[in-house]
């Protein structure tokens, strides 16, 4: 294996600035949407007192979950000592930071009182898993930044491994923490499952890697760098394993739910009668998010093409959004079981009369805010790789594959 060199992203200036301008415009529109929502209040959104978390939370949670997963590539290189992944580590760290920044921005801008964030920092309720998450997030930024620095600075290279291991452990805690936000909600049928936290960890692996692959392939193609087939194949296979694991957890989650009688109604809702949620579960979560990508990845011909890998990664991302939507919104749309053995036949506050689900239709400003978060992620990433040396000059097989010389 040759020595790996890194360099700044070399696409020509007009193209670079053009991309930033487009992303900047999307972010500006999202900013207007935020101003509109905060100025008027949340009545201009589709969120209600029944469905209290909406589209912004779907985007935010997806990005945060993907953030910790994006760090995986670096972790495999460091914590597990896989040489071939080492050159990939820097971009992995950068994406972890930018995805988290994008996700948190969306989350914070949807608060009823975003201006009081300082209060959230000074008034702390240590029992709240939400408050713990704030620590986990800030810690994540700091550790990953340190990690990137140690990766980049040869003088610090001897500390790079312990920091890498620490970052890996931290990221596991972070996703577990995000998953626990739901796990702690005992009130709602869909969330009250111990499997929620590990399922979020495995989802983060898949979504993070899918985003990583897309950004890596785009960045390399854009300035004519080479990625070898051997490396791509490894990453692709890894994605296949993660997606299969998501599928496995999905099956286990619903089977355990079906096992417990008290969850039968929730299962019937998600799997059969839930309308849009059922559709998104089978079509989005299962088909687009798991089965089709697995089919492409393990298809002998399709899986070997770059187009196939791009398609599979894109589908994993789209399916991921559907998954989070089903979990976040579907979990709220399903009426809470307050009176077992009884049916609510009338209510002055929408308690799911006759088992009717709660209504929610996302409004445009909410979606724009979410898309703004995505644009922010890309913008920060592109700026990062442009000004600092995140990208290896080449990942061609003879450079990146440690076994290449031998074979």
């Amino acid at each position, binding site marked *: 294996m040759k020595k790996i060199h890194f360099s700044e992203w070399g696409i020509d200036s007009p193209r670079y600035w053009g991309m930033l301008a487009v992303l900047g415009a999307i972010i500006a529109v999202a900013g207007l949407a935020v101003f509109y929502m905060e100025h008027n209040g949340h009545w201009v959104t589709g969120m209600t007192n029944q469905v209290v978390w909406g589209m912004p939370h779907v985007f935010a949670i997806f990005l945060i979950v993907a953030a910790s997963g994006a760090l995986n590539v670096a972790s495999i290189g460091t914590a597990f000592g896989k040489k071939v992944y080492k050159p990939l580590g820097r971009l992995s760290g950068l994406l972890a930071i930018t995805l988290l920044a994008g996700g948190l921005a969306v989350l914070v801008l949807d608060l009823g009182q975003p201006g009081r964030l300082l209060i959230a920092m000074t008034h702390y309720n240590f029992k709240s898993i*939400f408050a713990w998450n704030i620590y986990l997030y800030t810690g994540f930024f700091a550790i990953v930044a340190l990690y990137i620095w140690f990766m980049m600075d040869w003088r610090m290279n001897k500390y790079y491994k312990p920091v890498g291991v620490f970052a890996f452990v931290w990221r596991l805690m972070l996703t577990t923490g995000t998953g626990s936000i739901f796990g702690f909600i005992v*009130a709602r049928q869909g969330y009250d499952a111990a499997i929620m936290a590990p399922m979020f960890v495995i989802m983060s692996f898949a979504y993070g890697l899918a985003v990583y692959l897309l950004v890596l392939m785009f960045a390399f193609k854009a300035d004519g760098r080479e990625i070898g087939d051997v490396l791509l194949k490894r990453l692709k296979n890894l994605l296949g394993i993660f997606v299969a694991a998501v599928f496995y957890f999905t099956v286990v989650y619903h089977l355990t739910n079906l096992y417990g009688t008290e969850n039968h109604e929730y299962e019937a809702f998600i799997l059969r009668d839930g309308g849009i949620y059922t559709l998104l579960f089978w079509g989005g979560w299962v088909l687009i998010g798991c089965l089709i990508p697995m089919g492409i990845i393990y298809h002998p011909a399709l899986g070997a093409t770059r187009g196939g890998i791009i398609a599979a990664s894109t589908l994993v991302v789209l399916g991921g959004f559907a998954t989070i939507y089903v979990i976040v919104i579907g979990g709220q749309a399903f009426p809470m079981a307050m*009176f077992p053995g009884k049916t609510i*036949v009338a209510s002055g*506050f929408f*308690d799911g009369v006759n088992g009717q689900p709660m209504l929610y239709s996302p409004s445009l400003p909410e979606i724009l805010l979410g898309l703004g978060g995505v644009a922010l992620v890309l913008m920060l990433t592109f700026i990062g790789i442009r000004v600092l040396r995140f990208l290896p000059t080449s990942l061609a097989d003879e450079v990146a594959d440690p076994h290449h010389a031998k074979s």
Partner: protein
Amino acid sequence: MSKVEQQGRREFLKGTAATAAISIAPGVMLHSLTADAAPRTEAVTDKVRWGMLIDANKCADGCTDCVSACDKENGLDLVNMPEGADESLWERQRPRWIRQVSLKDNLSGKITHLPMMCQHCEKPPCVDVCPTGASFRRADGIVMVDRHICIGCRYCMMACPYKARSFIHAEVAEKLTHTPRGKGCVESCNLCVHRLDNGQTTTACQDACQHQAIVFGDLNDPESAVSQALKKYPSVQIRADLKLNTGVRYSNI
């Protein structure tokens, strides 16, 4: 309007400062803020636990007296639909502290009605999850939101098993001094805390109920009407499986 807001804020701060001091360390007063909290003269203590017994047999079909009384008492009737809002969407966004729910027993077909509001859990999930501690439980059992430190994350609404809370979705032009309210914060039934802190011993919904379906009082006082009623009639907690030890109990559901 700003004057009303100002007064409301001051009065509210006084009230919550006293209680917050207690909720930080139960039994230990951090400072003598209570002196300011007129007309209350003593600190809120856990000698009292406010609670209710609701008799579903007495609650009448289609009656909205408690709901209107609460709306009026706590200024919820002053929350107007914003111009241009979609009416059916707004119905799902407007705040409600109490509501009537009608149930049909799946086996017998028996219909019961009951008012639902914050159940004032002894182990409130809404307090456990709140990142800032805005959602808090007073020593006397009242669970409420300090609207000055609520950041509007709505995690408490996700966590409440009774859907007791409302988010303020729009600007509120007019509000009562004793119930400050602000866009972007969460609120819920506080057992008419301003009344209790004023030395009154009833809630507005209880007073309004012509069918005497609601008995309110001190659960810790064996002589109180509510304790007596609880002793006399079998009662349940809604979602007792969660073991939240609610302050609001029901009979005949």
